[in-house]
């Protein structure tokens, strides 16, 4: 009798335990997706013991090779979107890998850098709380590596009030249109400008510009619209609800609208762009337009491998950063070596996201090394703001912060195309047209930066 009573209870316990374990596993996957601001104290990780020795020594990242920094940590912070389907964590994780390298090789005058990464799920209240957490609890003296769909919109005035000058990867308009944010990337608008500009240079008769139906589409579309109008080429603006559940229809509509001498230019995340391009391929539509274009997110080898050779010299993708596969410079080699030795948390490996994180970190380190006194909010942000004509080794042009009201320091790009599973350069560094009024306003205030040596 007692056994009969006990048995169901034990079964219930086992089931509950299994369910709890499963929920726990799911929770781990979305720990950064929880509604609370999950503070990840990501002090720079130690070098991976299992990683193979890099071809290029990573010791050149610091000023005292082989000497670990043991001084008081310099606290920096980052806020990054991490939710199912949209995650930019590779960017601050790569910045952290760079800082780990610096810390292992002397740090900043003996001080290690400690990067606090806050993840968010596109919730304004959470993002505002994240910023306060970084400032009031973690006492960060600078913000480096922010990459968020709406963080710039939410926190811009907060950072301005406190005197922080952010080094980030931008998405929202405020990442480019405010005095306190300078991005290493172009963001969706100017990258789309670049893709449309390339299509126009190929003398297409019509542009179909299609993008995700998310807040800010009007702001992004204004750039391509201005470029097409200036060239006297008709442009059709489309938006698609994401995730896309009817890629065949989307591809058919784009091709029908563009016509045989037109171009279809996409501004989507890689998975969404891929489903549209693959649908076009399955329906035999890839040759029904003169060319296909895409903004920077398409610039991944994942995409090139998935698409296959039919898209060689058919798809042209804007590239905001120099192509890592074909660039053989000391900086690019250092990036790959650091990624290999310290980048175990960078899931995407070599690619635009990790390049952005690397670039932001090297700019920050360059600025921090110029400080002679204490590392305070005032001194660190003054150093960030003072960065001028810095050769990142990753961009077409030298990078500056400065005092202008807007910041688009990366406004010169290249174009790549798939080549049997890799992205290769189709057109070298080209200035984004100042027909876009935002670009014109920035150049008028900050001037046109010189090309980086070797770009």
């Amino acid at each position: 009798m007692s056994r009969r009573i006990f048995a169901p209870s034990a079964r219930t316990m086992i089931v509950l335990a299994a369910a709890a374990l499963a929920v726990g596993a799911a929770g781990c996957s979305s720990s950064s997706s929880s509604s609370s601001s999950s503070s990840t104290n990501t002090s720079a990780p130690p070098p991976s013991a299992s990683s193979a020795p890099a071809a290029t020594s990573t010791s050149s990242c610091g000023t005292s090779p082989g000497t670990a920094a043991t001084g008081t940590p310099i606290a920096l912070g980052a806020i990054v979107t991490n939710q199912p389907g949209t995650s930019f964590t590779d960017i601050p994780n790569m910045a952290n890998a760079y800082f780990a390298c610096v810390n292992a090789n002397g740090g900043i005058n003996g001080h290690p850098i400690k990067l606090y990464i806050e993840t968010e799920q596109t919730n304004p209240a959470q993002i505002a709380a994240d910023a306060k957490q970084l400032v009031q609890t973690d006492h960060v003296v600078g913000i480096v590596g922010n990459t968020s769909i709406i963080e710039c919109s939410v926190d811009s005035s907060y950072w301005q009030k406190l005197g922080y000058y952010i080094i980030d990867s931008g998405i929202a308009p405020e990442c480019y249109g405010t005095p306190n944010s300078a991005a290493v990337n172009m963001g969706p608008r100017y990258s789309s400008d670049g893709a449309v500009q390339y299509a126009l240079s190929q003398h297409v008769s019509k542009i179909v510009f299609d993008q995700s139906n998310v807040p800010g589409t009007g702001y992004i579309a204004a750039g391509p619209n201005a470029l097409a109008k200036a060239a006297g080429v008709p442009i059709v603006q489309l938006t698609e609800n994401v995730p896309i559940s009817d890629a065949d229809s989307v591809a058919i509509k784009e091709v029908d609208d563009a016509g045989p001498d037109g171009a279809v230019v996409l501004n989507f995340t890689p998975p969404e762009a891929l489903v549209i391009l693959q649908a076009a391929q399955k329906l035999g539509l890839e040759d029904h337009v003169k060319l296909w274009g895409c903004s920077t997110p398409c610039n991944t080898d994942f995409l090139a491998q998935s698409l296959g050779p039919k898209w060689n010299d058919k798809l042209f993708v804007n590239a905001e950063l120099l192509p890592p596969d074909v660039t053989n410079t000391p900086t690019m080699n250092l990036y790959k070596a650091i990624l290999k030795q310290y980048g175990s948390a960078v899931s995407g490996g070599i690619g635009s996201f990790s390049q952005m994180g690397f670039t932001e970190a090297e700019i920050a380190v360059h600025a921090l090394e110029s400080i002679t006194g204490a590392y305070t909010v005032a001194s660190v942000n003054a150093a960030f703001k003072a960065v001028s004509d810095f050769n990142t080794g990753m961009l077409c042009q030298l990078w500056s912060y400065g005092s202008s009201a807007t910041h688009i320091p990366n406004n010169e790009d290249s174009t790549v195309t798939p080549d049997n599973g890799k992205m290769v350069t189709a057109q070298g560094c080209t200035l984004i047209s100042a027909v876009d009024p935002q670009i014109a306003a920035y150049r008028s205030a900050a001037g046109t930066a010189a090309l980086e040596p070797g770009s």
Partner: protein
Amino acid sequence: MPPWSDFEPFIVSGLALGGVYALSGVGLVVLYRATGVLYLAFGAVGAMGALIAWSLTQAGAPGWLSWLVCVAFAAAVTLGYGAVFGPALAARGPLIKAVATIGLTLILYGAMDLLWTTSGGEARSLTLPTDNGGFSIGQIQVNWTQVIALAAGVVITVATGAFLRYTKLGTAMRAMANDREITATLGVPVRRVEAAAWLGCGVLAGVAGLLLADLVALDATTLTFLVISSLAAVLIARLRSIALAFAAAIAVGLLHDLLTPITSLTNYRDMTPFVIAAVGLLVLSRHQVLAQSREES
């Protein structure tokens, strides 16, 4: 309004999509009739099966093996869920049973987010060999995957209808749909019948996951929540009629895609399943009210 020729290509894509929705809808109806469970994890198990198939293919496994594993995974998870939670929830209401499957959905969704991350801009795709062949109807290119999707919807609907009508197991399922307790007292092995329904639903979830991963996208979010379109068809069928579920699923897929070239409506086409479900239910309930009032008079 665009000319008719602009709509023609969307008929093919709409029929293919509708075929897969029908496949999913039939699985959902059969399971509901046998167990009373509205299986909301149908999309998630198919999605995870498809992602496992992708991983196997990337690791060098032959295509046929990865497809089999996809279907086997979906079948095993669904059967496992039914075996563990089915008896415990058998006496609870349909709402609780349905909500419990949301729990499974979230667990699988979280696991997919963890195991197949997109933080590095990864883009995955699962292509079937049938994508490469096909034929043209006028200027419209039709590939074999689209044909298979529609054919699978038709075949599964007809086969399931025949199974429920002419086999012992099917008769037992229909009996359980009417009254589980009386069916049990008549000596029908209820657990075994339910297990068969769970297994069949899981197999269909795996097949639908594979086809949708090819036709739509290999993306956890997309595939997990695509079940909503099938649910609309299932609701119109009032969770009972397989034939009606099939017809409604084809209508959802077709109308959804035919709205694409209409500029003023194209951005609202994702509402199609909900609009069709709402209108369908209103019409059906109006007929029911009229029939009742006629009986009373």
